[in-house]
């Protein structure tokens, strides 16, 4: 069955229309990624309505390609301007910018592109091999295990998000609460709709995420006007971009190590490219014989971060496609893309919607290959995108948000809702409360509600069912540990284990 589905996905992705949309998605991703201040998540969120007119598999493949392209694109501004195009390219500035200062910008781009390509290929292969197998295991999960998986996903995402764990958990809990709006899936009665018929089918997830991710981003661009440090002069790049085999040879180990770090970081819900790039950079430095040279403009620094952030893409899609738990905020938006086509996240993604899911899996591999060629052709052109002013981009984002949220259901109420979520997102940003857990709460809310009710029906109302199932018990224990690990008590215990005498005295 898995082989059949894989072959079906391969045939599907090789259709000219699919390959063209993947190429288009990669190119858009490259240019969006190159613009400082615009994240892949925001780009996917505002461009999501564009996929309505396409087949779900084609549309979602385009968005995944955009994600992959943006991961490489982020390095362009990082290398040229010392300003990461996307948060995932933050560590690339450390060695990329000094390389550009030494007149080696073309070399830095080449290493970044090659490392991104290898990282992307490794993560695509990981997705192709791990996802179908994990999907088979997930199929054996009943409502009890599904509830526990969702609880674990929520707690990990909340505790690993930037900032305080309490705020991450609160953001996630509010997201879950908002997901309760709409018709109750068990009794069929309207819940928290306040008599508004537009809310009977729940809060439109895509509308919420467009507001949460894009409006605050547009305002942030306005906030930073005047802080950019003047106009940058960009010199055209005339040198060859592609590195030679001799240049690449000493980087191979770093690239492979960083790719594996990226895949693993991606699999862990709540951590994304930004975490992976720093993790990989530190590891590359730790293993290097020339530790002191890191930060002065050495190719290893660029290779490590860029391999890792592209490897995150495939890794993050593994829990997203097999369990319906988004690995990052970007994959949460991708899930939104599936939901607008009526495809619900969960283990059935790999069976009921195998045509879409397996096409997406292959699309990532082809997006990586296409990204390499698009990168070779367009990198020299995309450096000029870094010069586009925030003053031009910010209102354009707003227009796309408004038109996109209207287009989803042809509803003005959705535009108001998007604006409301935008305001909420902006103030959350101001108090450093992460928005990703709220979005993921909105996705998982229904799944949690349904699986909880089904489990309680099975157990005749007894909550002990969640500890009687061994898988569920383990998952819930891990959920508890994920919360405890971010508390001061855990830090104290670790300190005590490491240095018992010091604590005792």
């Amino acid at each position, binding site marked *: 069955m898995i082989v059949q589905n894989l072959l079906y996905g391969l045939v599907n992705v090789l259709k000219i229309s699919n390959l063209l949309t993947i190429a288009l998605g990669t190119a858009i991703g490259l240019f969006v990624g190159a613009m400082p201040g615009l994240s892949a998540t925001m780009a996917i969120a505002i461009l999501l309505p564009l996929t309505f007119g396409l087949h779900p598999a084609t549309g979602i493949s385009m968005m995944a390609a955009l994600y992959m392209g943006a991961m490489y694109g982020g390095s362009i501004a990082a290398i040229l301007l010392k300003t990461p195009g996307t948060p995932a390219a933050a560590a690339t500035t450390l060695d990329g910018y000094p390389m550009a200062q030494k007149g080696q910008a073309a070399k830095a781009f080449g290493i970044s592109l090659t490392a991104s390509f290898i990282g992307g290929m490794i993560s695509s292969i990981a997705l192709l091999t791990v996802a179908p197998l994990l999907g088979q295991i997930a199929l054996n999960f009943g409502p009890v295990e599904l509830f526990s998986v969702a609880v674990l996903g929520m707690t990990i995402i909340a505790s690993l998000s930037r900032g*305080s764990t309490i705020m991450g958990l609160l953001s996630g809990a509010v997201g879950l609460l908002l997901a*309760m709006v709409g018709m109750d899936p068990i*009794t069929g009665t309207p*819940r928290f709709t306040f008599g508004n018929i537009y809310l009977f089918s729940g809060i439109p997830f895509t509308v919420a995420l467009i507001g949460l991710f894009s409006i605050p981003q547009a*305002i942030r661009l306005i906030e*930073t006007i005047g802080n950019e440090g003047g106009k940058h002069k960009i010199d055209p790049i005339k040198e060859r971009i592609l590195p030679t085999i001799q240049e690449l040879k000493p980087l191979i180990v770093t690239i492979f190590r960083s790719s594996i770090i990226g895949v693993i970081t991606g699999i862990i819900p709540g951590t994304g490219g930004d975490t992976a790039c720093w993790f990989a950079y530190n590891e590359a430095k730790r293993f290097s014989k020339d530790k002191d040279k890191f930060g002065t403009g050495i190719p290893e620094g660029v290779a490590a971060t860029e391999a890792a952030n592209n490897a995150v893409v495939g890794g993050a899609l593994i829990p997203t496609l097999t369990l319906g738990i988004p690995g990052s905020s970007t994959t949460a938006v991708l899930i939104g893309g599936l939901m607008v086509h009526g495809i619900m996240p969960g283990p059935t993604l790999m069976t009921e919607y195998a045509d879409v899911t397996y096409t997406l899996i292959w699309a990532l591999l082809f997006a990586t290959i296409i990204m390499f060629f698009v990168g070779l052709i367009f990198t020299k052109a995309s450096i000029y995108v870094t010069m586009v*002013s925030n003053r*031009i981009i910010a209102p354009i984002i707003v227009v796309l948000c408004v038109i996109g949220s209207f287009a989803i259901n042809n509803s003005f109420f959705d535009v108001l809702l998007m604006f409301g979520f935008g305001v909420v997102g902006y103030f959350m940003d101001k*108090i450093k409360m992460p928005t990703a857990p709220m979005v993921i709460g909105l996705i998982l809310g229904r799944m949690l509600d349904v699986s*909880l009710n089904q489990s309680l029906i099975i157990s005749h109302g007894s909550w002990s069912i969640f500890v009687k199932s061994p898988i569920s018990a383990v998952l819930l224990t891990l959920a508890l540990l994920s919360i405890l690990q971010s508390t001061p008590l855990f830090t104290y215990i670790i300190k005590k284990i490491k240095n018992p005498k010091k604590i005792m005295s």
Partner: protein
Amino acid sequence: MSDFLKYIAAALLAILLSIIFYIKTFSLPPEGYQFPRLLIAVVILLSIAMVIEAYFKLIKNAKKNVKTEKNKTEKNVNSLRVFIFGLLIGLYVFTIKPVGYFIVTPLYLAVVYLYLKSTSIRNIVLISLGFTIFVYLLFVKFLHLPIPMGFFS
């Protein structure tokens, strides 16, 4: 507003939302309110925990006499500009339905660009009109998606 007051405001809003939802649960059957009530309790507890955490952070910072990085960067934010930009977004959102995309969108873009002194007048006109037409062609002609037409519907 100090950070601590911001956290109190956020916690109060979350608790208010929870109370409204809690009142609404009385009109639901037991199967319908079980999970929401659990979530309401969690939201209230976490809101209180957030304020306590912020309070301890406040005391810790006061002891160290630390000026946080956030306060330093906030000085560079032009609050009036952000407020006006937000106001213009609100105006755009509320006028697009009655007046329509073709009038409000180029107008919104042009006004924001003029306010932000983004580029020359000629470029402002070109970008505002060009982008409006581009989005129309992309959404309506190419993808067959609706846009609010207002007077033109």
